[in-house]
């Protein structure tokens, strides 16, 4: 088969090796960090980033981008927390379901604007990013929903232990498993790759690009809504600025995980590894005695390194015919 089909797998393997090396380095200075219990803690800590990175992967695969995920999370999280504070009687599963449904609706707004009006995704989600967060302010009047206002059931659900892991971690596991199935074993999932990889060929194959992009945005919104609940219940507080700027972390996780920003290339596994990579660094810095203030610049450097590696890999495989042409022309000149 074409080397292209092997490429993502090789890249994930590489990332896994680099991740293990990183863990090894950390273990040299802080052996406690690599105990199973602590690693499970890192996984739980990264759960929300993992879920959102998977959501973003679906969107990026179709050559779009969703900058509104963190704002969506803040709005749905705020709405859920306020509902819970005002009506403690509403069963928690219903609230979780409601948050996800609300996130889905917000994602559908993005999707419709991209699909039906034909606006560039980056413009649409830049607009809805500010609108969603603004709506969170309107909804709450700028007030916080504090721990004591929310019900115990609402706050405790993600912390409930099951086979040694909290439900928050299991939520990430479930999303990983479902998304892996969805992306690789269903027509809708394969359509994401087809539309992003080659829109013209996808159209000839009878795939409706617009509808596929719309579905990707709905998927992204749904998971952002779910994370709205998870975030608020995990940190036990809801205010307008929760997860501010988190959208860029999410995109960074995807990029590190080898999801190509030009579409059509990437996998659930890659996104998960990318998110875990960021999670490990975030958790390891204080342990190895580096000021957490350096975390941001370190992840910046890692993002750049990852993009350089990924772009190299893509280019040698000649994925973009046009670029090869221009490159050839240059060497000829």
């Amino acid at each position: 088969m074409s080397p292209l089909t092997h490429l993502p797998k090789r890249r994930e393997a590489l990332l896994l090796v680099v991740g293990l090396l990183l863990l090894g380095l950390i273990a040299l200075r802080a052996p406690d960090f690599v105990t199973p219990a602590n690693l499970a803690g890192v996984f739980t800590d990264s759960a929300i980033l993992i879920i959102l990175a998977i959501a973003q992967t679906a969107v990026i695969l179709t050559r779009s981008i969703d900058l509104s995920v963190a704002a969506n999370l803040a709005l749905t999280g705020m709405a859920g927390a306020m509902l819970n504070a005002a009506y403690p009687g509403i069963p928690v599963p219903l609230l979780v379901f409601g948050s996800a449904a609300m996130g889905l609706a917000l994602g559908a707004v993005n999707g419709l604007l991209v699909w039906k009006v034909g606006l560039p995704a980056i413009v649409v989600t830049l607009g809805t990013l500010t609108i969603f967060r603004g709506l969170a302010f309107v909804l709450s009047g700028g007030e916080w929903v504090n721990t004591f206002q929310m019900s115990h059931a609402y706050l405790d659900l993600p912390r409930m232990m099951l086979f040694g892991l909290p439900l928050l971690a299991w939520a990430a596991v479930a999303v990983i498993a479902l998304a892996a199935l969805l992306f690789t074993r269903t027509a809708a999932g394969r359509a994401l790759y087809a539309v992003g990889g080659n829109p013209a060929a996808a159209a000839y194959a009878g795939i409706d690009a617009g509808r596929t992009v719309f579905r990707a945005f709905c998927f992204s919104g749904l998971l952002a809504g779910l994370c709205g609940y998870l975030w608020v219940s995990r940190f036990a507080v809801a205010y307008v600025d929760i997860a501010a700027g988190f959208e860029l972390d999410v995109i960074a996780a995807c990029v590190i995980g080898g999801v190509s920003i030009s579409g059509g290339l990437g996998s659930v596994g890659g996104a998960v590894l990318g998110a875990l990579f960021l999670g490990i660094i975030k958790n390891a810095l204080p342990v190895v005695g580096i000021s957490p203030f350096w975390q941001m610049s370190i992840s910046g450097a890692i993002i750049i390194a990852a993009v350089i590696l990924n772009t190299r890999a893509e280019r040698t495989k000649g994925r973009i015919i046009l670029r090869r042409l221009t490159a050839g022309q240059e060497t000829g000149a």
Partner: protein
Amino acid sequence: MTMLDAKVPSGAQDDAAKRDGDARPVRFIPDRGDAPALALLRSWETLLLALIAAIVTAASLASPYFLDIWNLSDATFNFTEKAIVALALAFVILSAEIDISVAGIIALASTMMGMTAAAGHPAAVIVAVGLATGLACGALNGVLVTVLELPSIVATIGTMSLFRGLAYGILGDGAYTRYPAEFAYFGQGYVWEWLSFEFTVFLGLALLAGIVLHGTAFGRTVRAIGHNPAAAEFSGLRVRRVKFWLFLAAGLAAGLASVMLTSRLGSTRPSIATGWELDIVTMVVLGGVAITGGTGTIPGVVLAALVMGLLTFGLGLLNVSGIIMSIVVGAMLITVVALPILLRRLSARLRRPAA
């Protein structure tokens, strides 16, 4: 071919979508297809002017303090620094690239200036350090995008973290607050009566940017690159070199904005200018610059800056909170970008029976 061609790009930002922004309209004569679109784009500035007129009318009716020259002059401070970066970023976006790192550059430049000031150097050195930091950051972005050929959106997301992260790493939770007195002029000084130094520089740079984009071969080169990079390359244009200069200019503009902002605030914290990247991109897009490159004007960007500035000022006078304001800006961004597309679709529908 046209049918399929027209179906594909909805969502995926392809060349056809770039020209039409729409999947539907059937292009009968491709080489004449752009004429109504161009006419609409020409009226983009008119649309923004009408918006400004509406804001000024509404705000002056609602508040007696709006049409006061000193108040208006004060109001320019809240958008001038962003607008200066927007002028440079407009060129980057016109060339079909993007620079998300501008706010990170502002933070790093401000930190470097704070270090310089703490070492006891005079204002001129501090300004030079700020501008040089901007240039260096712009050069790094330029190298990543043009030499290493990284997609600019991810490369600059990376450098955004890197630049602001360095500011956090150097400053931690501290701050630089001691700047020499003469440094205050760049963000607080007035050139003449109510005309601030900041706004004067902005007007000068807007004029310069307008002339470069609309009156020089370089400006045409930038547009050509944005419209069709491959065609530009085959036409012998130095695509990478031009793009490198554009990233350098964006870095320098961010450095300049950092000088002004730092001087105006008189202090540096690593969180300085947080979230500005999105505001600045919004300004450029609101100004009618297509995010996919190639089309857009400097007058449009200047008008968009005025729209955002006057709106903030007007709503502020009415005690509307800043975050409500951001809803208005977000909605305006989507509406203003969607409007020409919807109008074009409408006109195509009206024309179809005749054709």
